C-alpha cells in the first residue's frame, strides 16, 4: 500500500537532474555551515591547547614591550628588558600562585645562520621548576639538564633539525664563543618550544653577563584562584608588565572574530541561495503538477494531506543535501583546514576544523528547519489547489 511519503519521494525522481542540482546546492551550503561551525569550535580549542601548552597562564616580564619574543625577532635581542631575580620571591608571596619559573631570554647574531646570518635565541630556564611546569614536553633523545650551572642545552625539535644536532654534540654560541653540550632533544610539541634552545638559567646568566637578571617569570595560577585579582596585584611590583595569556587569547580571538563574521555572512548567503533554490524547485514541481494535485484532492486528499506531501518532498531534498554536505565537511576537513591556514594571519597548531556528533546534529537540524521553512509557501500553494482546476484545464 502506498503512503504519501512514497508519493513525495517518487515525485522527486521525476525530474532527477533538477532534484540532484537542488540537493547539490543544499549540500554545498551544508558543507560551508558545518565547516564553519567546526572551525568556530576547532579554532578556539586549538588556541586553548596552544595556551595550555605554554604551561603557565601569566607571564611577568620586565616593563617595556610585553611581547618579548616579538621584540627578539625584530631587534635581535637588543630590545630586551631585564628585571631582578628577586622578583620571583615577591611573586611567590601571593597565595594564588601555584608555581613559578624564572626565565632569561638571550639572543645573538649568528652569521652562519641561513644565507645572510640570523638570530639565534636561547632561553635560560630553571631545571628545578621549568620541566615540572612543562610536563607535557617529551624527549626524542636524552633528558633535561639537572645542574643550573652546567653548560648544557636541550633543543626543541625544529631547532635540532635546523642546527643538525644530536645528543652528545656540541653547540657553539656565536659572539660568546661558548660551547654547550647537547643533552636532550625534544619531540615535536606543536608549540613555540619546537624552535627554542633551552640552557640552564645560571649558566646562561653567566654567559651573557646577566647575573641575577631575568626577562620573564612564568606563573601557574591555582585553578580556584581569581586570575584577574592576581593580575592586579602583580602590577604592584616595580617595573613589571603582566601578560595574561587569557588576554592574549582574547586578542587573538577578537582578531579572528572579524574573519569569522565574514565567513558566517558568506555561509548565510550560501544558505539563503540554497533556500531560494529549494523554493524554486518545489514551486516549479507544484505548478507542473497542478492538475495532478487537483486529482489527488478529488480522490479525497485534504488540504493538509497535500501540504504534508509537498512539505515532505522539501524535507527529503534538504535531508539528502544536508547529509551529503556533512559528509563533504567531514571528508574534506583537512582541505578546509589548509585553506583557512592560508587565509588567516595566525592559526594555532591543532586541528582547526572539529566536527563532532553535536555539530552534525546541529547542522542537520538547521538544514531541516531551512527545508521546513522553504517548503511552507509551495506546500501552502499546493494545498489550495481546487479539484476543479484539474478538470477545467480540459476544456469542453
Amino acid at each position, binding site marked *: 500500500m502506498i503512503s504519501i511519503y512514497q508519493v513525495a519521494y517518487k515525485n522527486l525522481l521525476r525530474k532527477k537532474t533538477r532534484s540532484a542540482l537542488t540537493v547539490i546546492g543544499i549540500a554545498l551550503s551544508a558543507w560551508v555551515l558545518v565547516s564553519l561551525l567546526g572551525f568556530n569550535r576547532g579554532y578556539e580549542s586549538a588556541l586553548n591547547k596552544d595556551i595550555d601548552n605554554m604551561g603557565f597562564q601569566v607571564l611577568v616580564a620586565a616593563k617595556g614591550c610585553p611581547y618579548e619574543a616579538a621584540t627578539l625577532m625584530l631587534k635581535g635581542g637588543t630590545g630586551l628588558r631585564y628585571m631582578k631575580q628577586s622578583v620571583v620571591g615577591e611573586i611567590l608571596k601571593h597565595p594564588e600562585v601555584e608555581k613559578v619559573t624564572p626565565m632569561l631570554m638571550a639572543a645573538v647574531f649568528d652569521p652562519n645562520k641561513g644565507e645572510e646570518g640570523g638570530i639565534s635565541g636561547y632561553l635560560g630556564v630553571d631545571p628545578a621548576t621549568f620541566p615540572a611546569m612543562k610536563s607535557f614536553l617529551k624527549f626524542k633523545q636524552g633528558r633535561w639538564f639537572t645542574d643550573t650551572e652546567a653548560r648544557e642545552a636541550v633543543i626543541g625539535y625544529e631547532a635540532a633539525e635546523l642546527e643538525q644536532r644530536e645528543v652528545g654534540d656540541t653547540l657553539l654560541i656565536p659572539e660568546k664563543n661558548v660551547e654547550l653540550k647537547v643533552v636532550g632533544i625534544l619531540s615535536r610539541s606543536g608549540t613555540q618550544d619546537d624552535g627554542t634552545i633551552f640552557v640552564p638559567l645560571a649558566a646562561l646568566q653567566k654567559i651573557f653577563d646577566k647575573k641575577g637578571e631575568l626577562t620573564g617569570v612564568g606563573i601557574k595560577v591555582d585553578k580556584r584562584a581569581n586570575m584577574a585579582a592576581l593580575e592586579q596585584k602583580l602590577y604592584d611590583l616595580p617595573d613589571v608588565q603582566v601578560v595574561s595569556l587569557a588576554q592574549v587569547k582574547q586578542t587573538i580571538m577578537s582578531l579572528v572574530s572579524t574573519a569569522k563574521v565574514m565567513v558566517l555572512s558568506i555561509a548565510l548567503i550560501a544558505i539563503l541561495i540554497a533556500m531560494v533554490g529549494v523554493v524554486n524547485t518545489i514551486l516549479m514541481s507544484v505548478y507542473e503538477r497542478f492538475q495532478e494535485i487537483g486529482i489527488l*484532492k478529488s480522490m479525497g*486528499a485534504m*488540504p493538509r494531506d497535500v501540504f504534508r506531501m509537498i512539505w515532505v518532498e522539501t524535507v527529503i531534498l534538504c535531508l539528502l543535501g544536508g547529509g551529503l554536505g556533512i559528509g563533504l565537511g567531514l571528508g574534506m576537513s583537512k582541505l578546509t583546514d589548509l585553506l583557512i591556514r592560508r587565509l588567516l594571519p595566525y592559526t594555532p597548531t591543532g586541528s582547526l576544523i572539529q566536527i563532532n556528533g553535536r555539530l552534525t546534529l546541529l547542522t542537520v537540524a538547521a538544514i531541516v528547519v531551512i527545508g521546513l521553512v522553504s517548503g511552507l509557501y509551495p506546500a501552502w500553494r499546493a494545498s489550495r489547489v481546487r479539484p476543479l482546476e484539474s478538470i477545467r484545464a480540459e476544456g469542453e
Partner: protein
Amino acid sequence: MKPRSPIVLEARDLTKVYTRGSEQVTAVDGVSLQVRQGEFLAFVGPSGSGKTTLINLLGCLDNPTSGTLALGGRIVFGDGKNISETRLTRIRRQTFGYIFQKFYLVPTLTVIENVTLPFAFYRKEGSMRDPLEVLRFLGLEKRINHRPGELSGGEMQRVAIARALVNNPEIILADEPTGNLDSARSREIGQILRDLNEEDGRTILLVTHNPDMAGVAQRVVELRDGRLAPEAGSPKAKARRMRIRRPSRLKPKRIL
C-alpha cells in the same frame, strides 16, 4: 429504471454564472433534476451547452452561484449555506468516484500504486474494495506492476476507473471518459460502465458527446444553453431521435 429506489442526488434551480473578462456567462441556468439510486444518467448536448459545468456542480467539484444541491436528502449547497473546502472534501470522498477524459495517473507510480493512492488519504472503513479484485475485473491483473507510460490509452482509463472504484463510491461521475480513446476502446469503457451499473447497482452520471456512449445509459438528459431540454418520451425514443442505439451486451460478467 428503479422508480422506487431512493433519491441520492437532487438539484433545484442550479445556476452557475462565470465572469469571463467583462462578460457574464451563464453556463448552467436553473437546472432541476433528481437522480435515484442505481440510475445511469447520460448528459448530452453540443459543446458549450454546460454539461461539464453541470456535472461538476452535481459532483460537488464546483460551487453553484445559486440553487440547491442535496445529497441523500442532506443539503450541500443552497439555503445560503457556506460550506468549507474541508467538509466538501469529506462529502466528495464519501460519495463520489471521478473519472476524467485525461486519466491523470501519477506517472512515477505503478498501476497498483495508482489504484491504491486514494487509500493514502481516505479509506471508507468496512466497504473499500480489494484493489486486486477490481483490477482483475477490469482485466488489468497482468499490468499491476507497470507504469502508466507502458500502458495503452484504454488501459490507462481502466486504471483510472479502478482508482475511482476502490473506495466504493455511491455515485460514479464520468466526464467524457472516452474523449481520448478510439471507438473500440470507447465501447470497452462503455461496457464497463454499464456492467458497473447493471450488475453492481452503482449510480453513474456520464457526460459524453458520443451517441454510442450515451446509448449505454438508462436515461439521457439533453442540455442546451445551460438548460435541460424537455425529457420527452422514453430514453429509447430519445436515443432513437438522437440516433443512439443501446448496444447489446458483449459478455455477461459477474461484477464486484
